[in-house]
């Protein structure tokens, strides 16, 4: 049991380091088992140092920096134990345009090996997807799904805003 956990830990930690360094353009992060002699007595910590900064407590990171750490953790699990499909719901909510695009581009690369459904309100994310699905609702409380939309239709008809952000 303990060797099983440590094997999973090593595998995911290695991927986590790679993914975070990639997404943060040179930052460093790692996972740490609090109690190496008996891992089940302690927890799993995360240490992250964004590029150009000193190491901080995880709580001192900004909202977007935390989002990048979380996505790195999720991608690391996915790389260690690939599954055929994933659903991600507004994981880009605190990311700036650059980080949101980087995450979407990583999803795009990962989508060669697995199916990704990503729910998003951000144009920079929608631009990276291969397929676009719209969900709308008239004033009757009933959801309708519009298949194969293009970005132009999304901004005009679905999001109802001509010069959307």
């Amino acid at each position, binding site marked *: 049991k303990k060797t099983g956990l440590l094997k999973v830990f090593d595998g995911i930690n290695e991927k986590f380091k790679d993914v975070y360094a990639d997404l943060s353009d040179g930052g460093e992060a790692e996972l740490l088992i609090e109690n190496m002699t008996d891992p089940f007595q302690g927890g799993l910590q995360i240490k992250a140092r964004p590029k150009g900064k000193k190491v901080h407590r*995880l709580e001192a990171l900004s909202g977007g920096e935390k989002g990048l750490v979380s996505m790195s953790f999720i991608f690391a699990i996915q790389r260690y134990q690939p599954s*055929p499909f994933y659903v991600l719901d507004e994981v880009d909510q605190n990311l700036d345009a650059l980080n949101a695009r980087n995450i979407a581009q990583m999803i795009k690369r990962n989508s060669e090996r697995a*199916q990704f459904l*990503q729910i998003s309100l951000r144009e920079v994310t929608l631009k990276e997807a291969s397929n*676009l*699905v719209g*969900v*709308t609702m008239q004033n009757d409380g*009933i959801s309708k799904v519009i298949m194969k939309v293009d970005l132009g239709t999304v901004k005009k008809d679905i*999001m109802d805003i001509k010069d959307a952000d």
Partner: protein
Amino acid sequence: MYLKQLEVENFKSFKGKLSIPFMDGFTAITGPNGSGKSNVSDAVLFVLGPRSSKAIRAGKLTDLIFNGGKTGKPASFCKVSLIFDNSENILPISTNEVKLTRLVKRSKNQIGYSSNFYVNGKKSTLGDFDNILSHARISSDGYNIVQQGDITNIVSMGGVERRQILDEIA
């Protein structure tokens, strides 16, 4: 293997029967606030059988049945099917497609409900689903589905809870 189609019937804000085909690769889903995007993700989670109904934002399972919208009558059941492409035989079922269905029906007395699982139309159990899906490493508790707001939990959760994610995988 990929999710080829999602069929929803009277599930949350989806009235009647609706079939949503999905492509392989990267699909983005967008739309206005409150239009039903997260309900799509809840529909997937509903079939995968989360340990708790809280994960699909419902107090009790019957909250998931279409409530009639603005003016209509509430439905008496909700049903969701996930149709996976199984041409590579990853799932231990011999068909090219595997259809997993979950049905929740209100009881006649309007208080209780029944919950049933089906594989390719034949009655099954949640245990069977877990077993079938584990072959593809799909689980409702793993990180296949990251619900809205979850992204901030990974950093804020305690160390032990985070370790338990690895325990699941081990």
